[in-house]
């Protein structure tokens, strides 16, 4: 866990999301976690390699995921987390994480990111680290995106 990796994520979210039609993006609380986290419904895992290694899990409720997808599709109603919404959330994770990689490069960390793994379910847990790691809460037009990160 390293606090210097927090800002690249916040910057990525506040840079990428307005381009996708989101209006109000605010940073919520920053906390730490140990061991597994409960999935809120939709959890996207992305792996980092090269000079910074680790995992990031974007965690959100299915309802938030649908609303976020709807905004990305210019307000089209998204009632269920269907193929279209899945594609949108996958695209979002990709864009944000790629932007994080660019931000890290400007801090002289060369990184490479894996394909996002999208997982969903009513009751499951996700573990990205055996140690303590950071959780950043971001509020995106009233929807919570919880960023769990363990980067070294």
């Amino acid at each position, binding site marked *: 866990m390293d606090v210097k990796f927090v800002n690249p994520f916040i910057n990525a979210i506040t840079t990428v999301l307005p381009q*996708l039609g989101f209006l109000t993006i605010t940073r919520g609380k920053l906390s730490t976690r140990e061991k*597994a986290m409960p*999935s809120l419904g939709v*959890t996207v*895992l*992305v*792996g*980092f*390699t*090269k000079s910074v*290694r*680790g*995992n990031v*899990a974007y965690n959100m409720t299915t309802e938030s995921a649908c609303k976020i997808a709807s905004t*990305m*599709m*210019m307000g*089209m109603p998204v009632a269920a987390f269907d*193929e*279209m919404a*899945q*594609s*949108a959330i*996958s*695209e979002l994770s990709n864009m944000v994480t790629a932007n994080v990689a660019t931000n890290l490069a400007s801090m002289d960390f060369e990184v*490479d*990111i*894996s*394909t*996002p*793994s*999208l*997982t*969903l*379910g*009513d*009751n*499951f*847990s*996700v*573990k*990205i*680290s*055996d140690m303590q790691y950071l959780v950043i809460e971001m509020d995106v037009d009233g929807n919570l995106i919880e960023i769990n990160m*363990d980067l070294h």
Partner: protein
Amino acid sequence: MKEVRVLIVDDSKVSYMMLTKMLEKTNFKVCDYAKDSKEAVEKYQIHKPDIITMDMNLPDGDGIETSRHILKLDPNAKILMISAMKDVSLMIKGRAAGIRSFLQKPVDPNEFIDTLLLLYQNEMNLRNILEESYIKPLVKIFQRELFKLSGLQGKMILGESIDADFDVNGTGIIIGLTGNPSGRIIIYATDITMIEFSRLVLNLSDDEDLSDEEAQDAFEEAVNILMGNYVSKLNDLLKDNEIRIAPPGMISGNKIRVLNTKLKSFQITAKTRIGDLEMSIGFAGRQD
């Protein structure tokens, strides 16, 4: 390269003539032209072209809806969407429908030909290349490492190549892959099998206890070793691809749906006396 047949779907005859002109001295042959959605579906069935270029705005529907119809008839249809605007929401909708590539009007001739080439060659060869270079070695390494780690003899089954979503019931270890190609691997099993496997890995006797958490940690470590060996083997075989693995993540629970959005994926099952160990490996595609 043999002749590649292209069906152009565009409501403007001028666009059709321009695109045809661009392909004049290439191996791409325009086999026909459809001016609306209805004609596009009909002519696709008549010609079965190798590639379709699809305009977004058609008089009787939009390009995405038309693509959906064609993909329903032939899930392997290769469609290049050409539209006046290339915005994110259009691409998301298009990708979800199964459209492989996007170009913006006005179309640059070189970019057009390059995109067609990539679309044709990549799609034709990607699965074969992946299977030969990445999957066959993986099946062997999976079997060998399984034996080395746990003493289990696995009967290996390489599943049909389908890019479908799947469910994890129990514990799954997710490892991201970066380099060329990037992707991700998930190895999963029911908790009963996972615990039994971990007992074998740790060489525990029947009277020794193992908590669920310890079992999961051992499972994670075993998968990490297996993947480390796989990736170093790959890098020996395929120089310059710089394939690396991210640290393992873990999912645990019941009915966890894992999506295969945009991935070319393969399923490998190791059938053992303690149950099945499943592996799903998905690639985002190569960048050459």
